[in-house]
Structures are given as C-alpha cells and as structure tokens.
C-alpha cells in the first residue's frame, strides 16, 4: 500500500486557514479592510526577504545578512529619493544586489562557509549603513512619489464609482477590499509569482535544488554549481534591497539600525513553510504560507491583548513565537523521520 504523502506546505496552508477562521470568529474586525491592509503593509518586508532566504536555503546555504542589507538599502534609497521614485528604487535594489554579489563571491570563490560569509556581511552592511547615514535616520523625500512605494495603495484610485456607493453590495465591497490593498502587497505578489516561476520552471531553479541535494554530485553532472550558488545570494540581496526600499518608503526614512533579527524571522518563515535547512528541497509557496502564518500569529497576539482577557506584554510575544517555532520544528522532524527524509 502506498504511503500517504502530504507535503508539509499543505499542512501549513491548512493551519493558516484554520487560524484565520478562528481569529475571524473570535475577534471583531480581524478581517476588516483596515486591519488586513495595515498588517499586509507591514509584513510585506518580511515576506519578501523570506523568498530570497528560501532560495539560499534550497542550496544548503544561509544568509544572515538580510536584515543589515535591508537597513543599508533603506539608507541608500532614502538618500537617492530626492531624484525620484525610480532612482530611489534602483539605488536600494542596487545596494542589495551588490551586497548579494559580495556574499556570492565570498561563498563560491573564497569557499568560506555561508554562515560566516554572511555574518561578516551583516557587520559590514551595518557599518556602511551607519557611515552613509551619519549615525542617524535619513529622511526620505516627500516631494517625489518615492514614499508611495510604502505608503500608497496602488490600485485604490481604480475602484469604479458604483463600487464605492453605499448600496454597492457584496461585490462592490469585495472590489474595494481587493483594490484597496497597499502597494507593498502588490510588490509581494509580484515577487512571489516571479520566485515561484524561477523555482518551478527554470533551469536555475532546478539547479538550486540539485546543488542543495548534493554539490559534488551536481558538479559531476556538469551543473553550474558556482554560478547557481552565486545567483541565489544575488536573489537574496535583491529581495533584501527591495524590502529596504519599502522600509524607507513606508516610514519616510532610511533606518541604519533596523533589520535586527530579520534573518531569524525569515529563516523561521522558511522552516515553518516546510523547507528543509539541509538544502535540496524547498517551496516558495510553503514559504509564503509560513511567512503569513507567523504574521497572523503576531496579529492574533495583538488582538488577544486588546480583548483584555490575558495581558500579554510585548515580551510574551517572543516567548510565544519561540514556542511556536519549537512546535513546528518538532512536528517537521517527526514527519521527516516517518517519511525517511534526511534532516
């Protein structure tokens, strides 16, 4: 009899639906446009960084520099923002890509463990960000459209008049709900679609998984191991750069000391999404689910505080998040052991 094989990401997606339903039933306004839109706006940065992290982890690597690189990109893009939205965006992305290229170079050419290479980048990016920012936050320009990248609602102006009327009905409300999504949400959608396509339908995506499954074997099969590994760090740098641009745009300032702990949040998202840290396996869809799950958990904790039944200080939240990660990794370990997957 064939074994029932449920991918971990399906389990995560089911948990996601279940948690959301429970929360919608328990808390007033949990699914209200205001709550959903502001939560998605804020979590967009973590969602994006998690995509890059997922690619890196597929190859068996890790990128500890994502938070510091995002902070650096936020400073660079804020500095470039007076020249307009496109220069601001490109400057932030460029900073991220350069950092990613350096990571890729150090890992593939100098053969330094990803853990250490990206740890060094974390320090270097933080130092560079502080230097460029002169040890303080850098105001982004409000004269250009730059800040709409974080604060805007891309399609909000395209809501048809009839849908905004009081008697627009359920369809109108839904249209308002969806078109009112914040700009960072649409950026997240774009990043995940592109990431998903790269993962499933390009040679690069298959190579990344093959390299993670076994670098030696991949090399013997003639796969471009070095350029693939280099590529995933560039993707991760790009994602961090994009997150940094949104950070600067959303809060109207480049923040050299932001991003502390982002690497761990994104690693947690990837792991919760069912990607093995040993490489050779991974799913962008799972990462999205994991990333959303952590975000929803955090929002639920906030609402639970608001209910006044229990008073969860901000400190409890990290305890709960740690406990949640604990449950997930133990469950994963048990599933993997049953399915005979190496961990």
């Amino acid at each position, binding site marked *: 009899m064939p074994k029932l094989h449920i991918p971990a990401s399906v389990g995560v997606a089911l948990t996601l639906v279940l948690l959301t339903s429970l929360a919608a039933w328990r808390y007033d306004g949990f699914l209200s446009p205001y709550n959903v839109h502001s939560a998605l706006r804020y979590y967009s940065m973590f969602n994006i960084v998690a995509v890059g992290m997922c690619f890196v982890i597929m190859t068996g690597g890790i990128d500890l520099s994502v938070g510091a690189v995002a902070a650096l990109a936020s400073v660079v893009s804020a500095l470039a923002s007076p020249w307009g939205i496109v220069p601001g965006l490109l400057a932030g992305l460029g900073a991220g890509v350069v950092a990613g290229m350096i990571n890729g170079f150090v890992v593939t050419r100098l053969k330094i463990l990803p853990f250490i290479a990206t740890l060094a980048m974390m320090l270097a990016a933080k130092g560079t960000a502080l230097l460029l920012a002169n040890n303080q936050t850098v105001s982004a320009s409000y004269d250009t459209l730059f800040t709409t990248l974080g604060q805007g609602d891309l399609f909000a102006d395209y809501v048809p008049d009839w849908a905004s009327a009081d008697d627009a009905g359920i369809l109108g409300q839904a249209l308002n709900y969806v078109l009112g999504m914040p700009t960072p949400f649409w950026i997240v959608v774009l990043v995940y679609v592109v990431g998903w396509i790269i993962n499933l339908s390009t040679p690069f995506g298959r190579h990344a998984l093959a390299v993670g499954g076994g670098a030696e074997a991949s090399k013997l099969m003639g796969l471009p191991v070095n350029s693939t590994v280099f590529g995933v760090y560039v993707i991760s740098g790009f994602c961090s750069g994009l997150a940094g641009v949104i950070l600067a745009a959303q809060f109207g300032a480049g923040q050299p000391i932001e991003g502390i702990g982002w690497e761990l949040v994104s690693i947690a998202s990837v792991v919760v999404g069912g990607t093995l*840290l040993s490489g050779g396996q991974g799913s962008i869809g799972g990462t999205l689910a994991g990333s959303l799950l952590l975000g929803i958990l955090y929002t639920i904790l906030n609402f639970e505080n608001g209910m006044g039944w229990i008073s969860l*200080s901000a400190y409890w939240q*990290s305890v709960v998040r740690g406990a949640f990660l604990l449950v997930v990794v133990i469950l994963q370990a048990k599933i993997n052991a049953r399915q005979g997957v190496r961990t």
Partner: protein
Amino acid sequence: MVDGKTWIYGKAWLRRYGAFIGLILLILFNVAMTPNFVSLRALNINLTQVTQIVIVAVGMTLVIATGGIDLSVGALMAIAGALAPMIFMEKLFPIGNLYLAIGVGVVVPVIVAGFFGLFNGWLITRFSIQPIIATLVLFIAGRGLAQVSTNGDQQVFAIPQFQAIALGNLFGIPIPFQVWIVAVIAIIAGFILKKTALGREILAVGGNERAARLAGISVRRVKFFVYWFSGICAGLAGIISIAMVSASDANLVGDGKELDAIAAVAVGGTLLSGGRASVVGTVLGALIIQLVQYALIGNGVPDPVALVVKAGLILTAVWLQQQEHA
C-alpha cells in the same frame, strides 16, 4: 617568487601561528600608536570588555568542535542575569545571610542556564533538528522569558560583595576578578579538549559523526555535554555582566554576544565545520577582535568603520585557516 611547496608550508605555518602573531603585532601597534595604551587602566578596560565574550566563546568552541552552533547564548546570559538579582536580593525566598545569598544567587542561575543548554541538546539529539534551528528557539524565546520574569524592568542593586565577582581583586593583584574566572573556565575547557577521552570524542563527532557512532562513541552524550557546557558558560557570563554594572536589564544583558563569540572562535582558528578546535585560539581570537576595536576607536576611527574592519578581519582569518585544505 616563492615556489609552491614553500607557499603551502608557509600557509600552514601562518594558520598555526597566525592568531598569535596577529595578537603580538596588534599589541605593538597599540603600544606605538594608541594614546595611554601602556597603563593598568587600559589593560583593565580591555580585559573587562573581553571577558564575557571569551567565556561564551570558550563554550561555543566545544559546540562548534562537534559541528554544531549555539545561537542561544546571549539569551541564556539574559536569563541568568535576570534570575540572579531576584535570588540574592531575596525576592523569591528568604535566605538571611548575605554571602550565602550571593552564593545561591550565582550557582542557581548558572545551573538553570545549564538546564536550558540541556534543552538545546535534547532538541538536537532527540529530534535530529539542526543546531542552528534548535538553538534559534531559545534565541527567540529565551530573552522573552527573562523580560517576562522581570516585567522588562531594570533591577538595580548596590552590593559591593556581589560586584566583587566582576571587579574585585585576588591576593591584591590589580586585575579584575572576572579574569580569573575566565582563566579557570578556559583551562577546564582546554583540558577537556586536549587531555580527556571526552575531548577526543567531541572532535570525532565533529569530524565525522557517522564514523564516530560506528566507532562506538555515544554521540548523544557528547552533544548533551557541549550544549550543557555552553549553557553553563553563558550563565556565568550573564552573572559577570550584571556584576560589572550593578544592574540587570533583560533587554541588554548578552545582546549580540552569540555573534561576537562565533567571530572569536572563527578568528581563533577553530574549524567551523567541526573536527578541529583550539581553546587557546579562541581566547587569542577574542583578544584580537578586542584590540583591533580598541586600536581603531582609540585612534579616532568612527564606530561604523570598526564594524566593517571587524567583518574583513573575520573573513581574512577564516580564509587563512582554510588554505590548509585548499
């Protein structure tokens, strides 16, 4: 031009003695360039700034020797640092005698930190979870536990007898007492690694876990030990950290120390993939990072540049030690 053989030999030599030579060069540089470097005060500043990192890094060395990593050390420092004042200020239970209270207030938090270390070991051995993820759990939750138990408030205390753990003198030698604690821990760890069967088993597990298991080594026992030891070291570092400033703030104690410790281990020449480790190297590595920072800041280089230099230092050190395998 040097021929290939000389170059390979030179690189191996550099890997072996590089950290030591680097340290001497740094001291010479500081003597020549940094104002007031040759003074008891500068010595004590450097020593007190480096002890917490050394003590955590010594525990980390044993963990990394098995091919693992311990991200939870900073959080465990915060837990020990939060628990200790509650005990010696007799908030939890009456003790009566001040010295007894301090004794219990040091020993119990260190033991508790050791138990959290065992928890890491349990996750890693029982569920085969990768160390970086297993210890990520306490990295996230551990500091939260410390903050919850103190409500996020700072605990302030003025007890000279407790402060002496960090800053007292031993036999009138004008070196802060914490340095002796660190020396004892480093000697114990070095002894375990070099002179005991356990030490050889640690290196065997890091070199090739499967082979070690087939050779009859209890991999489980070895891993439990290194994470327990790392927890104990973190607990002690937490105590020293709060004794230094006579205050305990769960938000600050041990913050970022896991990265400093890993950097010290890396610069010290311990192979990060496991199987080869040097406690002396780790101590030298921590001193090198400290002296580089002191030299930069003492000569008016801004803090952010010091960060970038530190990054370059870590990469260079790791690259050099890898040349032996290249």
